[in-house]
C-alpha cells in the first residue's frame, strides 16, 4: 500500500472517441461509488453503465465503469476504471471531481510503479518501468509546452514575476528589517493579489466560461450559396453528413456535429447559403443560419475561388467584421491557391485559407488556424477562457488562486509578513507547477539583486 489514491487519464489526451480514466488506492472505489449514486455493490471486474455526477450534483457524463479489488488489479491496490467520452472537457470535469474528492493526480509512470512495487511486475522490469517514467515525463513536458505557448505562459510568467518581486519585498522586511530598505506596501500587495486572482480566475474560466468549455466551442460555416460550405463541413467531419449538390440553396437547416482539434471539442455548424430569395423556406433557413453565426465563437466564411469577391459576399462578410472569423477560399483545386480571392480577402492573409473541400488541400492548415484562433491571440474567442489548460495546470492554478484569495484576506486582517509570505510562496509554488519551475526557491537571489543590504 502506498497510502494515497491516485488518478490519471490512461488514454492519450486529445484523441477522440473513448477516454479511459484510472483510479488506484484505498479510496478508489469509494470515490467512484460516491460519484455514481445510482450504483450499488458493483461486481468486480465487470462492466457497468451508469451516469456520473459531479459537484452540485451536475451530470458529467454517461460512462462505463469497472472496479477491481486489490490485490487482483494491475496496481495490486483497489482500483477503478472509467470509460467516458473522449473530449478533454468531459475528461477534465471527471478527473477534477475525483481530485476534489481526495485523490491526487498520478505522477509520470506512477501506476506502473505501483504495479511494480506491489510485485505485480517482474523485478527485471525495473529498467522498463524507469524508461517508461522518463518517456512519459517527456511526453508530459511536450504537451505542457504546447499548452504553454502563447497566452498561458505569458500570463503565468507575468504573474510569477510579479509575485516574486513582492515576495522579495516581504522576505526582505523580515530578514533585513535592521537595514534601511524599501518595504512592502500592503495596499499595493492587495492590488496585485486581487489583479492576479482575477487574471487566474479568467484563465480558469469562471462558472459561465466553464460551462462554455463543457459545451464546446461553436464554429459556424457561412457564406454565399454553392460556395461549398456543406462540402467543407463534410470534409472537416470526415463523413458525408450534409447533402452536397450543384443546386444553389441545397442546405436549408442548421446542421450540428462535434469535431476534435488538438484535444479540444468544437461544435461545427453548416448553414444555408446567403442570398436574396423569394422562397420562404430558404429565407427562414438563412435567418436561422445568421442567428447561429451571430452566436458562434468562430465564423468560417466560405467563398468560391472561381466566383471571387462578389459585391454580395463582401457585404455579408462585413456583417462578421467585428467577430472572430476565418475566410475560407474554397475550390482551390480549380484556381490554384485560391487566386485573387485569397490575396484580395478583406480579412487579411493571416485569416484567409485556400482549401479544396474536394481534394482535402489546405484542410490541415485550416484546422491549425481554427485551433490557434480559438486558443491564442487577442481576438481569441476564448479570451483566456478556453486555453487548452490540461487538468494538472487547472488544479495548480486553482491552488494559486486560492492562496492569493487568502492573501487578500490576511492583508485585510493586518497579518504579519511571515503569514503573507506563506501565501505568496504557496501561490508561486502552484504557478511553478504550471511553468515547471519553482520561482519561490531562490528568493534570496532576488533580494540581493534588488536591495542594498549588508554590514
Amino acid at each position, binding site marked *: 500500500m502506498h497510502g494515497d489514491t491516485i488518478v490519471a487519464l490512461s488514454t492519450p489526451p486529445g484523441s477522440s472517441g473513448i477516454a479511459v480514466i484510472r483510479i488506484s488506492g484505498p479510496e478508489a472505489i469509494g470515490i467512484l461509488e460516491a460519484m455514481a449514486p445510482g450504483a450499488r455493490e458493483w461486481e468486480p471486474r465487470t462492466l457497468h453503465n451508469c451516469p456520473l455526477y459531479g459537484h452540485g450534483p451536475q451530470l458529467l457524463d454517461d460512462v462505463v465503469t469497472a472496479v477491481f479489488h486489490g490485490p487482483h488489479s494491475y496496481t495490486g491496490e483497489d482500483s477503478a476504471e472509467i470509460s467516458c467520452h473522449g473530449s478533454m472537457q468531459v475528461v477534465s470535469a471527471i478527473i477534477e471531481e475525483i481530485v476534489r474528492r481526495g485523490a491526487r493526480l498520478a*505522477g*509520470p*509512470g*506512477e501506476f506502473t*510503479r505501483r504495479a*511494480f*512495487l506491489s510485485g505485480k511486475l517482474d*523485478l527485471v522490469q*525495473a*529498467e522498463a*518501468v*524507469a*524508461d517508461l*517514467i*522518463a518517456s*512519459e*515525463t517527456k511526453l508530459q513536458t511536450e504537451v505542457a509546452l504546447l499548452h504553454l505557448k502563447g497566452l498561458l505562459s505569458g500570463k503565468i510568467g507575468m504573474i510569477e514575476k510579479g509575485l516574486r518581486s513582492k515576495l522579495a519585498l516581504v*522576505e526582505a*522586511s*523580515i*530578514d*533585513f*528589517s*535592521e*537595514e*534601511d530598505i524599501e518595504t512592502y506596501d500592503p495596499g499595493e500587495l492587495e492590488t496585485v493579489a486581487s489583479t492576479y486572482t482575477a487574471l487566474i480566475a479568467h484563465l480558469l474560466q469562471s462558472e459561465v466560461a466553464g460551462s462554455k468549455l463543457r459545451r464546446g466551442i461553436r464554429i459556424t460555416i457561412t457564406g454565399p450559396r454553392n460556395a461549398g460550405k456543406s462540402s467543407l463541413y463534410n470534409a472537416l467531419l470526415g463523413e458525408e453528413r450534409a447533402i452536397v449538390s450543384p443546386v444553389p440553396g441545397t442546405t436549408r437547416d442548421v446542421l450540428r456535429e462535434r469535431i476534435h482539434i488538438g484535444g479540444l471539442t468544437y461544435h461545427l455548424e453548416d448553414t444555408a447559403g446567403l442570398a436574396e430569395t423569394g422562397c420562404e423556406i430558404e429565407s427562414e433557413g438563412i435567418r436561422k443560419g445568421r442567428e447561429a453565426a451571430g452566436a458562434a465563437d468562430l465564423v468560417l466564411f466560405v467563398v468560391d475561388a472561381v466566383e471571387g469577391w462578389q459585391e454580395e459576399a463582401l457585404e455579408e462578410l462585413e456583417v462578421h467584421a467585428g467577430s472572430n472569423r476565418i475566410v475560407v477560399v474554397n475550390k482551390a483545386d480549380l484556381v490554384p491557391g485560391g487566386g485573387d480571392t485569397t490575396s484580395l480577402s478583406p480579412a487579411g492573409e493571416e485569416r484567409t485559407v485556400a482549401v479544396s473541400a474536394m481534394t482535402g488541400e489546405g484542410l490541415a492548415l485550416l484546422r491549425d488556424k481554427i485551433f490557434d484562433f480559438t486558443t491564442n491571440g487577442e481576438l481569441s474567442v476564448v479570451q483566456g477562457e478556453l486555453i487548452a489548460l490540461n487538468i494538472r495546470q487547472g488544479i495548480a492554478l486553482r491552488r494559486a488562486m486560492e492562496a492569493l484569495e487568502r492573501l487578500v484576506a490576511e492583508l485585510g*486582517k*493586518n*497579518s*504579519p*509578513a*511571515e*503569514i503573507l*509570505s*506563506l501565501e505568496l*510562496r504557496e501561490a508561486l509554488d502552484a504557478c511553478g507547477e504550471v511553468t515547471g519551475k519553482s520561482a519561490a526557491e531562490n*528568493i*534570496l537571489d532576488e*533580494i*540581493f539583486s534588488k536591495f*542594498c*543590504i*549588508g*554590514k
Partner: protein
Amino acid sequence: MEYPIIVVGGGHAGCEAALACARMGVKTLFVTIRKGDIARMPCNPAIGGLAKGQLVREIDALGGEMGLCIDYAGIQFRMLNRGKGPAVWSPRAQADKTAYHERMLSSIEAEKNLDLIEAEITAIAMEEGKARGVRTADGEEIKAEKVIIALGTFPNGLMHIGEKQIPGGREGEPPSRGLSDMLAGAGLKRERLKTGTPPRLLKESIDFSRCQVQPGDEDPAPFSFRTKKLDVEQIPCHLTWTGEATHAIINANIHRAPLFSGQIQGTGPRYCPSIEDKVVRFSEKPRHQLFLEPEGRDSEEIYVNGLSTSLPEEVQLEMVRSIPGLENAEIVRYEYAIEYDFFPPYQIHSTLESRNIPGLYLAGQINGTSGYEEAAAQGIVAGINAVLELRGKDPFVLGRSEAYIGVLIDDLVTKEIWEPYRMFTSRAEYRLSLRQDNADERLLGYAVRFGLLPREQWEGMISARKAVRRARRRLETESVTLEGSGKMRAARLLQRPGVSLEDIEPLLPNGPLGLGKKEGESLEIDHKYRGYIRRQDRTAEKLRRMERRKIPDGFAYKDIGALSTEAREVLEKFRPETLGKAARLAGVRNSDVSVLMVFLERAGDER
C-alpha cells in the same frame, strides 16, 4: 598519548564540539593555536540577530554554551522583528568580546573530561584510510578514534589590507598551512572563499552627539533557557549615515579597490557587500546606514557595521571622516579582507563526518559557512555525532521541519556553496514552527537523551507544557463576554488580531490561568499560528516520509539510463543520503525521483 576524540580549533565551532564530547562523558583533547584566542570574535561584536538568534536558542536547548556565554557577556540586548509576528522574532545582543572569550574559556577549563592544549596541527594521522589522530607542527603524534576539525578562516588564509597582502588566519594570527594541503592530498576537494571586517574607530574620537542613539530593550530577554534573569546594565549603540561627500570619495578611488581591479579571487558574500559595492550598484541611494557598535563594555574600539571596504588605508580614513559624527575619528584598525580554503560540504555526511576520511568531522567556516552561530551549531552537531559513532549509536540528524540547525546542515549537503553560507529565516520553510520561543520544546529532549542537560531540565519543560495544555483546554471551553462583541469562546476571541492573552485572562469566569510569562507567550503564539502551522505540518509530513527513504552509500547512479544526464551528474556529486535530499538537489526533477524510487525498492528487495 591517546584520546577517544580530538577537537582541533578553538573557535565557536570547536568550543561547542569539545564541550559536547566532554559532557557526553568522553575524554576529549582540545587543541588550538592560542588559548588567548578561544572563542574570539574576529568580526562584529554581536551574537544572534535574524535567524542567527534562533540558532543560538537551539544550540542552547541542545545543551550548548553559546547562550550562556552571551548572557554573561552581553552589553545590549534586543529582540529584533518585534513589529512582525513572533515566528520571526530573533534575539540579538552586543557582546563584550573579551568577556565572551573569558566565559567560554572558563567553561572549557572547568570541564573535567576536557584537556586544552596549545599546538598547531599540521596533519591528520591516518590508518587504513581512516582518521586515527593528529600530528602537531612539532612532529608529535596524538592518537584518537575520532577527530573533529574546526579551523575557521585559517587554512591558507591570506589577508588583504588595501593593496597589501599578508598571509594570516586572522588579524595578528598566522595562517594554518600544512593541514589543508594534507587533506587536499588525501583527496578532499577544496575551494576559496573570502570575507572581510570593517575598520574599528577610537571611541573617544567620535562625536556621538551627531549620531542617533539606539538603546537596548527595556526588558531584555536572555538567550539561554537556563538563565533565569538577566542582570545587565545596557550600553547604547549609535547610528549614522554616509552622504554625498563619502560617495564622491569612493567614486574617485574605485579603481584602487582590489575587488574591482580583480586582485581578490575568492568569492565574498552578497549579504556583506563593501561600501564601494553599495555605492556603485545602488548609485540612486543618497545615503547608507552605519551602526556604531562598541567592541566591549570598556573597550576603546568601535566597530562600524555597514562600512566594509577594500580601499587603501588613506582612502578609508578620508571616507570615514566624511561621515557625520566621524569628522575627527581615528581608525585604530583598518578594514581587512581574508581569503581562505574551505572544503565544499558535498563531501560530508549530515553528521558532518567526511565521506573520504571516515572518523574525521568538519565543522564551521571550513564547511563554507560564515558566522559564529552557524559555526557553533555545526560544532555541537559534530561533537554529538562523533560520540554517538564512537558508541555505535544511531546518528543525530535534525530535519528541516525540526530546527534551523537541520535546515543549515541539510542545505550544506544539498546545495552548491559559492559564497559563505549564512542563515536567513527565509531559508526555513517551516519557520512558523521553528521559533526562538519553542527551541526548548523542539530540542531539549535530545539534549537530555545525550546527557548534555540534566533530566530535571526536561521534567521542568514537560510540566510547563502540561500547564499550557490545561490552559488551552480552559480557553476552548470557557466563554467570555466582551463589550461590543457579545459572548464567545475565549479561544475564538484570542484568534482575533490584536487580542492578547493578557486582555482575555481577566475576563475568564474561572479566574486567571496561572501560567508563567514564557508559557503564556508560547500558548498565545501557538494559538495564533495554529491554522497555518497545521497547513505546514501537512507538507512537513510529506517531507519526513521522503527523508525516511534512505539511499545506500555508493549507490550506482551511472548505471541508471532513465535518469536525466543532469540529474545523474548532481546525484553522483552530492550522493544524497535520502530520497528527500535527492529531490532537493538542483537539477533533479520529479521524474528522476520516481525513477530512483523504483531502483531503491529493488535494491531493498535484494537485501
